[in-house]
């Protein structure tokens, strides 16, 4: 079983390296050391209660626990204020170094990479399902629950089932405006919302080598929407460039052995992929955006841990520049972090957005999960660059969410219906 000569995937090697072994078997349950433990204002209140029940005297490492109030922050109501206060007091009591107060706070999965807190080869858990985002940097990173985070915060260890891996090989050239969002919606459409259940998704191929880091974050982010545990990329020059000024410590690069056996392999030719939209109420309902031009909408959201990065805002600005959005549309744009906000300001994007009739918000997860800053009323429809379109996700159970990338979202804001950029520029 402990044969270090057996071929392994990236995630097997990362997990093995975190439990003092050369080799771990797929399907095996191991207790492994984690590099970073993350929680937010929705999931940590339960974890903090459990932490007190457990009776831990300290967190395992003050630098490695990350606390981000981002979901219902800035506080949306009194109850949310109480939850954020719990986080603040916990961070103070246990001297948590990486607590990000409103003003420094950003949407966690954009913030942690930006701060250089998550690195290749890391084993990371967070009480947020989109913790899989850091796979874009070659980390084995996954969402867990509050109880898991309690134990991980106290001990620095957690139980992991070593997953089998599905390999996705992307080839061909991307069409104009197509980004990682379209590739991942297309992929989830192909395999279904449980197509990667308990599996690691490994994104490879010549087309991903050319993908921007922002597009990679988007793809890793949505691995969970196919049920995936990890959504991981190999580290390359694009990753190295992104990390150069950000990394705060050394990291290790792992690659899958060339003779490793994958659970499944998918070959996807990107030249065939048009701009995608996932129709209600599953992220797997992927359709070509230009087939949905009769869907009238009420709201557009551009932001979130999926698509709130500078590359996403750049695409939106390119389409919205000098245009006015449809009079019946509310368009809400949310830069995912303060740094992204600043960069968008310097580059003139914020002025473009505001002049076109969009509203620009401080970082928050708010509308993505129907929390605040853009909740939908009964019968309303939204095009959103977020990650889920389940019943009631953005508000009233009889509202509808259409998931897209930033290009379709910006074009739809101008058209007042689902549209592709060619129709509006």
């Amino acid at each position: 079983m402990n044969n270090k000569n057996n071929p392994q995937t990236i995630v097997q090697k990362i997990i093995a390296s975190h439990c003092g072994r050369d080799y771990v078997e797929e399907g095996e349950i191991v207790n492994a050391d984690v590099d970073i433990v993350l929680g937010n204002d929705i999931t940590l209140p339960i974890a903090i209660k459990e932490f007190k029940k457990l009776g831990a005297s300290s967190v395992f490492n003050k630098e490695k626990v990350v606390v981000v109030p981002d979901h219902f922050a800035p506080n949306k109501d009194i109850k949310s204020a109480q939850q954020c206060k719990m986080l603040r007091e916990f961070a103070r009591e246990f001297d948590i170094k990486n607590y990000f107060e409103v003003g420094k706070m950003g949407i966690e999965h954009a913030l942690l990479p930006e701060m250089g807190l998550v690195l290749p080869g890391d084993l990371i858990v967070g009480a947020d399902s989109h913790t899989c985002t850091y796979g874009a940097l070659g980390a084995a990173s996954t969402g867990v629950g509050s109880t898991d985070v309690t134990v991980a915060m106290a001990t620095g260890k957690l139980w992991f089932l070593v997953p089998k891996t599905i390999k996705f090989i992307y080839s061909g050239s991307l069409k104009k405006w197509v980004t990682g969002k379209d590739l991942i919606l297309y992929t989830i459409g192909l395999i279904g919302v449980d197509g990667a259940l308990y599996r690691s998704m490994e994104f490879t191929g010549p087309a991903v080598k050319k993908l921007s880091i922002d597009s990679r974050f988007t793809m890793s982010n949505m691995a969970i929407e196919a049920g995936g545990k990890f959504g991981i990329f190999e580290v390359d020059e694009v990753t190295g460039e992104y990390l150069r000024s950000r990394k705060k410590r050394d990291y290790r690069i792992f690659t899958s052995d060339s003779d490793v056996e994958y659970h499944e392999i998918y070959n996807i030719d990107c030249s065939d992929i048009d701009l995608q939209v996932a129709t209600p109420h599953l992220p797997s309902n992927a359709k070509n955006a230009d087939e949905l031009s009769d869907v009238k909408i009420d709201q557009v959201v551009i932001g979130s841990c999926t698509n709130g990065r500078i590359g996403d805002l750049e695409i939106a600005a390119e389409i919205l520049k000098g245009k006015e959005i449809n009079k019946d549309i509310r368009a809400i744009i949310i830069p995912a972090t303060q740094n992204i906000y600043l960069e968008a300001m310097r580059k003139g994007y914020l002025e473009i957005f505001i002049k076109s009739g969009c509203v620009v918000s401080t970082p928050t997860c708010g509308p993505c999960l129907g929390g605040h800053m853009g909740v939908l009323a009964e019968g309303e429809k939204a095009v959103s660059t977020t990650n889920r379109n389940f019943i009631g996700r953005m508000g009233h159970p009889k509202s509808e969410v259409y998931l897209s990338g930033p290009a379709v979202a910006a074009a739809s804001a101008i058209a007042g219906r689902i549209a592709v950029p060619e129709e509006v520029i």
Partner: protein
Amino acid sequence: MIIREKAIKYGNNVNTDVIIPARYLNTADEKELALHCFEDLDKEFKQKVKNRKVIIAGSNFGCGSSREHAPLSIKASGVRAIIAASFARIFFRNSINMGLPVITSKQASDFIQDGDELEIDLEKGKIVDITRDKTFNINPFPEFIQKVIKSGGYINFTRENMKNRFLKK
């Protein structure tokens, strides 16, 4: 432990947004969460769960968010076990961690109908549909998970197994 209860049956991909909508996540109080459990999927759930305490579901039960509020609200509603064709990964972990039995059985999930009376024997690994007189064998959990369940959840398990520097003396 033997659970003898009637079933409430749902379909595939029952997600955490319909189990407990995010608009109620501004509290971690389980009793309050239970008031809204399944609100956007089944308005009758609160009535049904009074005398039917096993949920039967299709594939990918609990997909979506990592919110532990989902299994917590189900457990606090009085549900004693969930049987599904498959479970989403984080929901599965969360349920095990809080000691809520989650049983994977495609056969039982396909066969058992809404309202059927069931007897679940976790030690013997059996589900009996009393209404339709049919028995299903359940695959045992991996040894580690059995230990967690036996301890009554991951917090208790950790406390029992740590005897170490992390815990207050």
